[in-house]
């Protein structure tokens, strides 16, 4: 199923998926999404205020992301700092916050799976593993 871009006609939220949300999570209007092109989505997403994210903002974002999940950001600060350096180097050099512990294949769909945070709960380093962690070790199962 091919993913497409959708825009809320009320608040201009952008959704990327095989189908639009029934309820807009921002303005709470029902059936508000209309399909748009990737180019239109890029213009809307890139036309706002500076969207660059500092390392500390990303660190805070992934901390918030783990709240309510069974995993947490690794308590090993040195490891996390090294990984964040790599993630931001990859963002600068390769356009996305790719995992520093895998290599992009140059296949668009495959490489989307390497953007941090990735879907690591399905990986063999985490799924069903008592002390599971994502491949790079940025996220670890909560004790």
């Amino acid at each position: 199923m091919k993913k497409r871009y959708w825009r809320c006609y009320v608040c201009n939220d952008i959704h990327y998926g095989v189908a639009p949300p029934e309820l807009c999570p921002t303005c709470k209007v029902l059936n508000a999404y209309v399909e748009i092109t990737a180019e239109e989505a890029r213009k809307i997403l890139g036309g706002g205020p500076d969207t660059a994210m500092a390392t500390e903002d990303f660190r805070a974002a992934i901390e918030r992301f783990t709240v309510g999940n069974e995993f947490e950001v690794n308590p090993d600060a040195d490891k996390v700092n090294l990984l964040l350096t790599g993630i931001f180097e990859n963002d600068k050099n390769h356009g996305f916050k790719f995992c520093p512990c895998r290599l992009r294949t140059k296949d668009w769909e495959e490489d989307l799976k390497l953007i941090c945070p990735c879907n690591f709960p399905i990986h063999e380093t985490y799924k069903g593993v008592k002390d599971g962690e994502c491949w790079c070790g940025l996220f670890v199962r909560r004790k």
Partner: protein
Amino acid sequence: MAHLVMFYGRECPHCKKMLPLMDKLEQETPVRFERLEVWHDEKNADLMRSYREAIAPKCGQQLRVPTFINADTKDAMCGEVEFDKLKDWALQQG
């Protein structure tokens, strides 16, 4: 001697842990590794991609680092491993 290659990422903590183990292994044995960084050197990255069929089945179907590969036989091992496992693998390569 087999041509052994280690593909690594400069900011990969697993790779950082393995590099001193490789130094130790090279001091103790005739084994030698070519160390190739893949996130800051596109030529090295393309070389690693060229081994994808050999690497992926051993690495969760992905190109993960660190990866150790015998460039001649394409036998590969990936991830952070204990020194003895690294040594056994390297010595088996001949």
